[in-house]
């Protein structure tokens, strides 16, 4: 989650980060997915920040947004492995 916060701060600054309302809901390190909550209005901003992450601890990574939903219920109903 630190990487996402850093990316938002780097691209949009503290003002932008304050609008995002970022919260980590769920993280599964084995399957490699996470559920992140953010403000609906800041969706594109968070999406761009997540897409801009290329390294975590000097290791190359790529984080992809698999699904976007308004509620956690519909997010989990959408797909088992691909929910994120």
């Amino acid at each position, binding site marked *: 989650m630190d990487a996402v916060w850093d990316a938002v701060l780097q*691209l949009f600054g503290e003002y932008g980060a304050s609008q995002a309302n970022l919260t980590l809901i769920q993280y599964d390190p084995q399957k490699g997915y996470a559920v992140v909550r953010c403000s609906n209005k800041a969706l*594109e*901003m968070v*999406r*761009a920040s*997540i*897409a*801009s992450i*290329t390294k975590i601890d000097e290791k*190359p*990574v*790529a984080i*992809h*947004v698999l699904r976007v939903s308004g509620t956690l219920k519909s997010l989990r109903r959408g797909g088992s492995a691909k929910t994120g």
Partner: protein
Amino acid sequence: MRKFVDLHLCPSVQDLDQATRMITKCSELGYGVVGIPLPPNVGQEKFRQLQDICNSVKLDFVTRVDLFPKTPSELLYDLRRLRRKFEVISVACASKPVARQAAKDRRVDLLSFSATDLRRRFFDYAEAELSSKALSSLEIDVAPLLSLTGVARIRLLSRLRKELAITKRFNMPVTVSSGATNEYLMRSPHDYAALTALFDMPLSSALPCLSENPFGIVKRNREKLSPNYVAPGVRVVRRKTLVSSRKKTIP
């Protein structure tokens, strides 16, 4: 449903494993058409291998060549030689005369400029006016935006913002491509659309830049390369065939 196109996926053509991984990833990310730059003297075997890989993951493969001419005459020579061989031709404009020649030539599909050396981005009003008449499109690669950091990225974003304003003024089409050289630089079309917001491109314009604009180029060129094409608006509908029975009746 919208068909997303990545016209600039850059795997090493020699390393087929990497190419396979990147093409598969491209399909998983939701693209329907992929363009891979090939060397001008590429063999048929390599071409077929890449096409097979794309077919196996149900991707439409587009052949593309990136030209790096030093002079306008070199560009003209390359265009004469390669236009009929590749579906998409991109010109890396390294000097102003080359940029101007590429902008006014109708055989050029994409104009690309250096992402790292901003003094070599020769995209201005004159360039946009010429290219809007010649139907060529400005190519923006997103990979440099991901790999650059700090001041270099800030300057690139600022430059892209200005260029985008120029393209809007002249109704010049823009194509957004990945420019990815490895899997870590590949993102989904919606992620690219979100990233383009960094240089003030609204989502409603970003999605056509990832689908309709590049697909339009491919469609137009495929039609031109088809054996039935004669001229704009003129194509062969039916060919006259010799009937052997009629030959017999002639004394």
